[in-house]
């Protein structure tokens, strides 16, 4: 596969990149932070004995998404997979009364990811590629909770967006994979302390790589989140709103 990875410096993406490289795929790595991106690319170049193309880009800049697909396709001489891994947790309690902050979180987690998926879908349709669009959302998107409904609503909207897109594109041979990780021990969640419920990025990456190979529709990782979220989704609202957050 020729994969364009957006948000390549995120801990989950790095672990996925590692697996994809071992499986022999070609990659185009996109990240916002130049210093982190350079460290990552130098490290990969030494360890995998090959130069990996990529670029610095703020994924929230939606005007760049179409050109990005072209540049990635040019660098790899083709493109048949988009993997979206960027995102921001934001600070629920600080942001909840301040619309511009909320909008930023919604834009970064929903709009920009939806725009990327659209750009990739358009390219795959135009070229007749039976491509794969894999996007990381979150179990937080399955139910709104006071402690992180801003992030959660963006991820939930993204779940619905991808669901619709999957149904629209599957007849054309284009597959959409929704990845819903539970708690993962990454820098994004470092402030909460990594307890027992936290999975390692490597474990999550193993599941993601397998789901990409098998063209799974919705992946909960680790897998036990699927029954847990099933139960949580079905708690009646009169009770759920009274639960401690």
């Amino acid at each position: 596969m020729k994969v364009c990875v957006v948000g390549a410096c995120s801990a989950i993406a790095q672990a996925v990149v590692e697996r994809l490289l071992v499986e022999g795929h070609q990659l185009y790595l996109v990240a916002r932070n130049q210093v982190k991106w350079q460290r990552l690319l130098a490290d990969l170049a030494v360890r995998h004995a090959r130069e990996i193309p990529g670029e610095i880009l703020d994924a929230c800049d939606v005007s760049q998404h179409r050109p990005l697909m072209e540049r990635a396709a040019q660098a790899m001489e083709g493109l048949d997979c988009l993997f979206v891994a960027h995102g921001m947790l934001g600070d629920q309690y600080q942001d909840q009364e301040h619309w511009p902050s909320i909008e930023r979180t919604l834009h970064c987690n929903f709009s920009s990811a939806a725009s990327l998926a659209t750009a990739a879908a358009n390219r795959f349709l135009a070229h007749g590629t039976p491509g794969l669009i894999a996007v990381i959302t979150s179990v937080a998107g399955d139910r709104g909770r006071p402690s992180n409904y801003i992030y959660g609503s963006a991820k939930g909207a993204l779940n619905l967006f991808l669901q619709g897109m999957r149904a629209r594109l599957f007849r054309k041979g284009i597959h959409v994979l929704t990845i819903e990780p539970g708690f993962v021990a990454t820098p994004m969640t470092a402030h909460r302390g990594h307890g027992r419920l936290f999975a390692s990025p490597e474990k999550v990456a193993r599941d993601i790589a397998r789901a990409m190979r098998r063209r799974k529709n919705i992946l909960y990782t680790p897998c036990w989140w699927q029954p847990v979220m099933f139960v949580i989704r079905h708690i009646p609202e009169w009770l759920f709103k009274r639960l401690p957050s």
Partner: protein
Amino acid sequence: MEHLSWGRFPRTAQRDFPLGEPSTGLPRLLPPLLARGLGRSYGDSCLSRGTLLPTCSWNRFMAFDEASGLLKAEAGVSLGRILEVLGPRGFLPPVLPGTRHVSLGGAVASDVHGKNHHRAGTFGCHVHALELLRSDGSRTICSREQNGDLFAATIGGLGLTGLISWVELKLKAIPGPMIRVETQKLRHIEHFFRLEETDLALREYTVAWIDSGARGRHLGRGHYMAGDHADLPRPWPRPPLAFKVPGEMPTWLLNPLVLQTFNRIYHHSLLRQRAEALVSLYPFFFPLDRLERWNLLYGRSGFQQYQCVTAKPETLIRILQTVADSSHRSFLTVLKKFGDPVSPGLLSFPQPGFTLAMDFAQRPGLDRLFRQWDEWIMEDGGRIYAAKDARMTQGDFQRQYAQAPTFSRWVDPAFSSLFWDRVSGVKP
């Protein structure tokens, strides 16, 4: 988070501060600071009364040139990682200590040695350059040619000259992952010194294991191991699975009787006088990595490793004699002849002679024993390995390390360790 030294003695509370990107430089914190790698230093050179800076997030490779074998990597990269990544391509860190879980920065700071010291010298002999972040805000690239004084102070400098951010190291090309090893049973200590005069001692890797419980005419019996890289291209092996010690064991577990029995069984497990074998490099270089967290076997009170070097065989025999006569037993005793290669490091431990390393559970009476040996070693002009020490006095340090005054001029004023507090006379 609790940080202890590998010997788990002494126990003092430690604070740490996570480092950002290497490009952001040294965090501005209240001194004293001290880098923290993988925590394999036995003594208190990896402990601080201030703030530890864990380098584990600085774990990126930066550049590698296959033609020259020159590797540039961040200080938190471990030797095991290098082995895993570049071993399959036929490259090996030129010097390997007894565990692969050592960071590059730590290997430089302790100027570690290995079974090939008699041919390759210490780790520092193969370091081409390194970058040092100092508390004055500077980033200094040091090599033999550039800032040579600071380079010499940093090799074996116990992390006191600043924070090492990356290291450039010359790797050694190897034909494959297998080692052809010849093991000879040592009947007594004289046998070891005789073997050191034979061709066996010219092999690339040599080391002797000693049964510290044997006495009388068996004093210093053990196994002498000599190995060479086998010219067999084989697929690179996975590191063997490690058994993990589940937690802190009761202190009585490693009592003298258990240790003596273990040593005796191990000695007799070599059935023939002489054995040859072809083994993978993992068990050859890192036998103890098979038992993860083996330091927990010593229990709550921890243990101390006594490692000294002296040119006089008689002193070593006297030390082994006192161990055999005492109630203390060493779990693991290792004897090795150092060679002539000189390290650039000012505080580098190895010098021509024999080095003896012994692990002792922390028990009353141990210090008196150590004190006695210190006197003998210092009379010979020998020294104790600072990276394994937890009790050296200021006077001992000055006497053993002649370059100490020169070294102390290069110590970063914002850096210190409990070891340095002690030997430089700082009253915390």
